[in-house]
């Protein structure tokens, strides 16, 4: 589906953060991935916060004088995430999945920020800030993967 309005963009962002939060909660709840539990729990909490931040910014700055409910459309399909853990998913594989999740989420935030640049400035700015954090998280996961591979 194409995201062509700010409302659609914000809704999709919310769903994406929810999906990622659930993924990390599942990782944290599984003994097999206990080494990374604290990180996963922290990330899940952050995802919920990110959802709320973007939603709050949108609801606070939206105005009847709004220009550009017309976004440069972005396609939802580009950011579909694989968060399905199986009984055979090892800790390193789970980390690789998480890195992929962060990369796609990062891409979405960067693209959504660009797509909404004609909208009220606070929204792209919030998305950029979150994208930056997702890039940091990706590095944290990479370092966990390095340690797991030793």
């Amino acid at each position, binding site marked *: 589906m194409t995201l062509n309005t700010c409302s659609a963009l914000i809704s999709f962002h919310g769903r994406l953060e929810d999906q990622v939060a659930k993924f990390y909660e599942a990782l944290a709840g599984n003994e097999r991935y206990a080494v990374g539990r604290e990180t996963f729990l922290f990330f899940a909490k952050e995802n919920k916060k990110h959802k709320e931040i973007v939603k709050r910014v949108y609801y606070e700055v939206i105005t009847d*004088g709004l*220009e550009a*409910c017309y976004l440069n459309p972005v396609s939802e399909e580009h950011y579909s995430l694989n968060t399905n853990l199986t009984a055979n998913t090892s800790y390193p594989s789970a980390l690789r999945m998480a890195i992929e999740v962060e990369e796609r989420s990062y891409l979405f935030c960067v693209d959504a920020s660009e797509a909404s640049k004609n909208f009220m400035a606070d929204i792209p700015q919030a998305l950029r800030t979150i994208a930056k954090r997702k890039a940091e998280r990706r590095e944290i996961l990479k370092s966990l993967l390095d340690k797991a591979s030793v």
Partner: protein
Amino acid sequence: MVLLDEPIKERVVCKDYINGEFVESKSDKWLDVVNPATQKIIGRVPVSTPEELDKAVIAAQEAWPGWRRTTPLARVRYLFRLKQILEERFEEISRIAVMEHGKTIDESRGETRRGIENVEVATGIPSLMMGYNLEDIARGIDEMVVRQPLGVFAIIAPFNFPFMIPCWFFPYAIATGNTVIIKASSETPLSMNFTAQLIDELGLPPGVVNFIHGDRNVVQAILRHRGIKGISFVGSTAVGRDVIYKIGAEYGKKVQAQCGAKNYMVVMEDCALEPTATSLMTSVFGNTGQRCLAGANVVVVSENDGFYNKFINAVVNASKTIRVGYGLDESVTMGPIRSPDKKERVIRYIEKGINEGAKLIVDGRKPTIIGGYPDTCFLNPTIFKDVTNDMVVAQEEIFGPVMTIMRAKNLDEAINMIHQNPYGNSSNIYTSNGKSARQFVYDVQCGNIGVNIGIVAPMAFFPFSGMKDSFFGDRHGQGQDVIEFYTERKVVITRWW
């Protein structure tokens, strides 16, 4: 297609809210409230009787002395609570407005936010309502000005912003110590009907805020009611000037009437073309063109055919990205016209434009509708080029998604074109040249001026201005203006022996 959940599941029966109680009207005349996208009846609204209006006025009159004596600080604490409740019910309010009006969910949330911003600004009344003073105007004698409320005010709202426009007025009216009667549009009464329920939760003294439903008959009764001190009105120029302002004055009322518009968007050759085209889309087609700040006449200032054609291509291409459908569908960027008769009116203007010789380059009369909804109220964007300023489509307010493109040789000519129009609500210039922008701001006789801004919607702490046939009165809605409207200045000179 993601269709958001509809908050109205069953038909709403609108009730008047008089003296702190919800009352079902005894009127034998009721009107249907129809969702313009789905054509489903979502509510019923009474045309309240003169006796019911009278009860509301008496309740407001009786509440006034006590409310006036309530301290400003205590009065605004009700507004702090209202702000909180409105935030909690933000999404519900927004979706109700989509269902009754037809606008998109983004547009509706924008409307809700702007309404709440007015409540926020009105909480500053203890500062905003202050008078002024000077010691020793003569030796030992001091003089001061105090602002005092007047009594009962009526607020008559239009259909196009059913939540926001009453909020331009009533928070300030009650914060300054007046009592109010709010009459929502009979076409879109559900947002205010819901707001009445939220206001009821505040526990305001009975009679401070009253809601009365109805049509023009109720308006006529309000105008002639001796118990009402003043009227805040938003609607068409014909009604605002010839009915509200005239009869209101006859009956000794203070009146502020914010009326119609025909807004010019001046595009200079040095503008940033891509963002200008995008901005124009929302300006002209946002809220389906049904707003007094909508862009209508686009004047391209250029003798260069190449630029003119490039501009036209840009707006035509941008207009093709507009998706028309039900506003609760998140992929929709333009909703329906409010009612079939309003749609017919817009179509008649399109036909007039064709007959006058304007070139129809985008014809919105046979709409493509996302979601397969009935086409009863839908139109797609329409664009005319080679329009001249004397054409009816350039002079009259169409109140629909129609862009009329004209040309001017230079900025002076463009400004003259604006001044030939009887309206003076809003005008905009798109340019990267500061000198042109300054000349435009300085010379153009309109109440709200934009520089590279599509919709010059003043923030709550500024007045919503308007000139010429777009405004009748001397104090506008919102900001300091509306506080002055709802208060009288009293001069006090004191000497103590």
